């Protein structure tokens, strides 16, 4: 009897505890949830509202103009150029980081000497600020009066007998192929000045991708590969049919992480080129900053910010929702 009593008392107490604990749990997460609700969703709503007013000048205006500001910015050649640049930057940055990251991960993973040293060197730029990266690479890619009186990396090429490698780098004004299309107020193609910026960004982030892939590679059980090898598979076949598919989730994470960094890129470009030459390396983040705070066109700046947000959301939201669904299934 006594025993039965304690047994029955126990679950009751547990249930009461559970209720209290649930309340505590909710109370613990509430401040964060509230902060995010205000600082993320509230502010986004506020910015969305600003983007539909005619706020110009230093005093706030609240008269509603609908989507006029969006029409205005999409019709300017400058914003169209920004979008082009952003696409080029993102594509090159993502592709290079993934390829180089994977390559380095595979090499570091191939039982080499001084593995730790190589790995550490490849990853260290990740610890730096984009501002530091920008300041240093701005120097490296300042072409000087080349080919005769070069500076930076051009000078290094000249001194090491590789003078033919000299280029205009960040001052290259070409857009390749630079097609003109009726109704589009920018030249379609790859702005060459963007390449050095991509190099600097890849320098900074590819080590991070390598680390991610390395983690993935180390997580693949050696037995599976060994079994395939016993069955007569070549190393390349093992890599293609076992390693790569198993790394897919990592690639997806990397794309999301790099993708959103890329779509938001600001610091690096401000320091390295400031958007020059012309607007050839300017991205929406810079444009927003300049028209908002320099030209006092707050409403148009807000519209640019909202466009950036939508682009990032288009990349990220499906991933987040997909992630959530698979989690629930698990």
């Amino acid at each position, binding site marked *: 009897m006594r025993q039965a009593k304690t047994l029955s008392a126990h679950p009751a107490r547990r249930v009461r505890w559970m209720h209290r604990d649930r309340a505590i749990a909710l109370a613990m997460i509430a401040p964060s949830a509230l902060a995010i609700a205000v600082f993320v969703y509230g502010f986004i709503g506020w910015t969305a509202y600003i983007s539909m007013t005619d706020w110009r000048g230093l*005093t706030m205006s609240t008269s509603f103009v609908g989507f006029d500001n969006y029409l205005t910015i999409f019709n300017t050649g400058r914003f169209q150029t920004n979008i082009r640049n952003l696409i080029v930057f993102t594509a090159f940055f993502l592709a290079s980081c993934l390829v180089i990251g994977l390559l380095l991960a595979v090499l570091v993973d191939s039982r080499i000497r001084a593995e730790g040293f190589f790995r550490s060197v490849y990853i260290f730029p990740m610890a730096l600020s984009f501002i530091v990266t920008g300041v240093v690479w701005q120097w490296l890619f300042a072409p000087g009066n080349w080919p005769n009186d070069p500076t930076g990396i051009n000078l290094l090429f000249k001194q090491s007998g590789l003078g033919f490698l000299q280029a205009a780098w960040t001052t290259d004004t070409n857009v390749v192929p630079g097609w003109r299309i009726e109704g589009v107020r920018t030249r379609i193609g790859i702005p060459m000045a963007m390449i050095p910026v991509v190099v600097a960004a890849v320098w900074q982030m590819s080590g991070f991708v390598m680390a991610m892939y390395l983690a993935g590679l180390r997580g693949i059980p050696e037995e599976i590969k060994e079994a395939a090898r016993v069955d007569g598979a070549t190393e390349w076949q093992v890599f293609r049919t076992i390693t790569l598919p198993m790394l897919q989730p990592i690639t997806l994470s990397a794309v999301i992480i790099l993708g959103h960094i890329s779509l938001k890129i600001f610091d690096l470009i401000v320091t390295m080129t400031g958007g*020059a030459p012309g607007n050839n390396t300017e991205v929406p983040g810079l444009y927003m900053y300049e028209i908002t705070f320099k030209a006092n066109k707050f409403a148009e700046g807000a519209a640019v910010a909202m466009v950036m947000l939508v682009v990032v959301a288009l990349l990220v939201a499906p991933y987040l929702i997909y992630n959530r669904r698979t989690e629930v299934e698990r």
Partner: protein
Amino acid sequence: MFTTKWLKLFGIFSILALVLAACGGAPATTQPTAAPSQPTTAPAGGGKLEIFSWWTNGGEADGLNAMFDIYKQQNPNIDIVNATVAGGAGTNAKTVLKTRLQGGQPPDSWQVHAGKELTSYVDAGQMEPLTQFFKEQGFDKVMPPKLLEQITYNGEIWSVPVNIHRSNVLWYNIKIFQENGLTPPKTIDDFFTVAETLQAKGIIPLAVGGKDKFETPHLFESVLLAVFGPEDYAKLFQPGADWNDPRVRQAAEIARRMLEYSNSDRSSLGWADAAQLVLDGKAAMTIMGDWAHGYFISKGAKVGVDYGYAAAPGTEGVFMWLSDSFGLAKGAPNPAQAKAWLALCGSREGQDAFNPKKGSIPARTDADVSLYDEYLQYSIKAFGSEQLAPSVVHGAAAPEAYMTEYGNALNVFASDLDVDAVVEALQDAAKDLK
């Protein structure tokens, strides 16, 4: 065992971090970081003063410090906070300033170009009128009426001009010109003749920067002045101006040819770097405001020996001016200290300390001319006698929304040299003339 090692490491890390923070606290608190909440009714002659500007380069910073030194002598107990933000000919500084104003944290006094740029701050209710102050100090009697006109808006005076700069100046390397038997070009045609000769000798004819984003727009305003003449030039920046005028295209053509005679790495150089190319003898000429003179001086170069000056090609007899001024913030944290600063800015003593170093001429007509060097004496004379035109790039002629569009049109032009595109962009930009 693994986790305890982790914990220890984390513990050490956080202790280190805290120690660092504690150390961090010490040196920072010894600095006179007066909190904004500190009473502004500081004892007379004490307290704090925050001056906001974008003067960080050699001569500019020297001039500002010279004024600070006088201020400190006059008010030994006031701590001056020198709030400078570098880069982009004030672009970065203006951004910071605007967020500060938006955030309700104005500096006591900030640098603002006299003219249209000033009006946007007035419209936003960010400035205190200074008409009475001008009368008390007698500034209205010693500053040229033309200048007073530029700082008067809605019937009140809003800022104290500290200097006058000239925008349309051609700086050249004397040695290069002598060695090649050249004289500084007076007209646009002369310029191209000289440029051709220099290029054949392997010298960069014209050094142009771009990193600060105002260099090509600056060059272009001199070209516009040369093509349009002072009267028609001034009309270009009035509301409803006619940018379909064929002379716009003509100016763009000239600017394109000029840029073709310049260094190709424009976008990676600031204006000072371009000036340095002239000083180093790598380039022969640069068209820049006379803050370049201040830069040359700070580098130890001698006017008339290392470098010479002339009006930008085709603009002889016209003085394209701009003026730096300081205003009083509405709700300034330290208004009394700020007024003492403004009094110094407008005083003969302050201007004569600042301008010879900055490489600009005083905004007062009664300055001690003997304190100024050869170039500045020439410039003082020119300002008094030549026709005047306001600079657009430096805030005298047009509002900031227009300047941004104009500036971007020309920065794109500096990159792609597309005359049709720049003409179209300039026509578009004219919508922002208000």
